[in-house]
């Protein structure tokens, strides 16, 4: 591929992603309304679709307030980090056989590295706000996200063992006969739970817990800086859903009556729906419950999964 082609792929992928992030505002509110027996946004435009435009414009015309008591430089950089890292993470996702921005041979490690950098935005944003609620949110967010990163990394090892590669394209190809969700059900569950904690979505939205911490780490943010946290969260959901599909549900593989790209998008939207259903149905646990659950349940589970996968795969190879 030439450089011009690379540029067009990058622009295309970013354009689609940002539209998805904006569109999810509407999707989430409509689905929540459906599950809570309400109407949801239905005034602006057909089916309330223009709420997306209205929300975006509103954010642009709000005062971009940098508190005088905050650490200004860090306060400005923090929301940029979250949106930036999530956008870059998408380079490794194989949307269809030939549609991938960068076919890295260390794709999986790149994804884990980017999600680690994402933690900085919460810590720095909450700390720089110089607000006690924000600081508490930042501390909770930091310990929650770094703890669940350990389990996330370990839960993917089973997939790497079975496919023998960190390259996501190769991982999808390895699922041609059987999706990894069948051979790695524990890995899938732990990855998805860790994914919810990583994106600090409900029920694990402990860093922002609006009923105790106002809005947690982004309480002092306004305008499009708040919007960046918003975009980061929605793209985070999309990223975790896309990764779940790629690693455990065969990526773009599917019966041939639909093109591969359509299969990928359909599967991804199914998991985005699951994220929203979780929000609609589960209460928030306490911080210490979340941490104890992670270390005492998920970690032993994922280690056992790793060992059993290794033993069974070696046994099958020998016989």
């Amino acid at each position: 591929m030439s450089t011009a082609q690379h540029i067009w792929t990058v622009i295309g992928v970013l354009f689609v992603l940002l539209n998805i992030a904006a569109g999810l505002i509407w999707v989430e509110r409509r689905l929540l309304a459906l599950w809570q027996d309400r109407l949801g946004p239905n005034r602006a435009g057909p089916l309330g679709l223009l709420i997306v435009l209205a929300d975006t414009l509103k954010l642009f015309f709000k005062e971009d307030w940098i508190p005088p008591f905050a650490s200004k430089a860090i306060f400005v950089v923090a929301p940029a980090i979250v949106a930036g890292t999530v956008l870059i993470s998408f380079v490794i996702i194989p949307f269809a056989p030939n549609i991938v921005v960068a076919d890295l041979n260390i794709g999986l490690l790149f994804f884990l590295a980017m999600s680690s950098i994402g933690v900085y935005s919460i810590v720095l944003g909450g700390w720089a706000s110089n607000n006690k609620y924000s600081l508490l949110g930042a501390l909770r967010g930091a310990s929650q996200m770094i703890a669940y990163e350990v389990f996330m990394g370990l839960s993917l090892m089973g997939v790497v063992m079975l496919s023998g590669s960190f390259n996501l394209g190769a991982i999808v190809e390895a699922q041609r006969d059987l999706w990894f969700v069948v051979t790695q059900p524990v890995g899938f569950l732990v990855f998805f739970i860790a994914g919810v904690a990583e994106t600090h979505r409900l029920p694990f939205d402990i860093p922002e817990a609006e009923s105790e911490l106002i809005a947690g780490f982004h309480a002092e943010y306004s305008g499009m800086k708040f919007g960046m946290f918003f975009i980061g969260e929605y793209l985070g959901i999309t990223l975790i859903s896309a990764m779940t599909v790629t690693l455990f549900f065969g990526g773009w593989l599917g019966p041939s009556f639909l093109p591969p790209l359509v299969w990928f998008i359909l599967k991804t939207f199914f998991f985005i729906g699951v994220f929203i259903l979780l929000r609609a149905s589960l209460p928030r646990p306490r911080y210490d419950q979340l941490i104890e659950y992670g270390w005492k349940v998920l970690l032993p589970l994922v280690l056992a999964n790793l060992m059993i996968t290794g033993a069974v795969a070696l046994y099958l190879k020998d016989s």
Partner: protein
Amino acid sequence: MHIYLLQAVTQNPDSSYWYLPVGLQLLFAIAFVGLMMGVTHLLGPSRKTADKLSNFESGIESVGNARQPMAVKYFLVAILFVLFDVEVIFFYPYAVNFKSLGWEGFLAVMMFVGFFLCGFIYIIKKGALKWED
């Protein structure tokens, strides 16, 4: 299964080739974020009032500063993360190569997991994850 391993290598003989699009995506992402935050800064109004000079704490009178000592329990989780994540890193090269390493490699990793679990049981017995003492 070995075919996939080979494929990953032959697909991109020069793996550094793919870092060009990564760099491009980085550039575009930064440009987008910078543009959004710049535009909102220019478009939004700027009204300075005395109420905005204090922290937003749901209307409760703000006491003191947020730059205070924090609970050491949060710090403990961070330290545990450093320890365990370093141990997890050792699994990555094993997971990629485990078919060629065979049972011998598997037993070695079992031993490693054993040590890993000893440390894990120690921190649980120490009560490092208990929030209330």
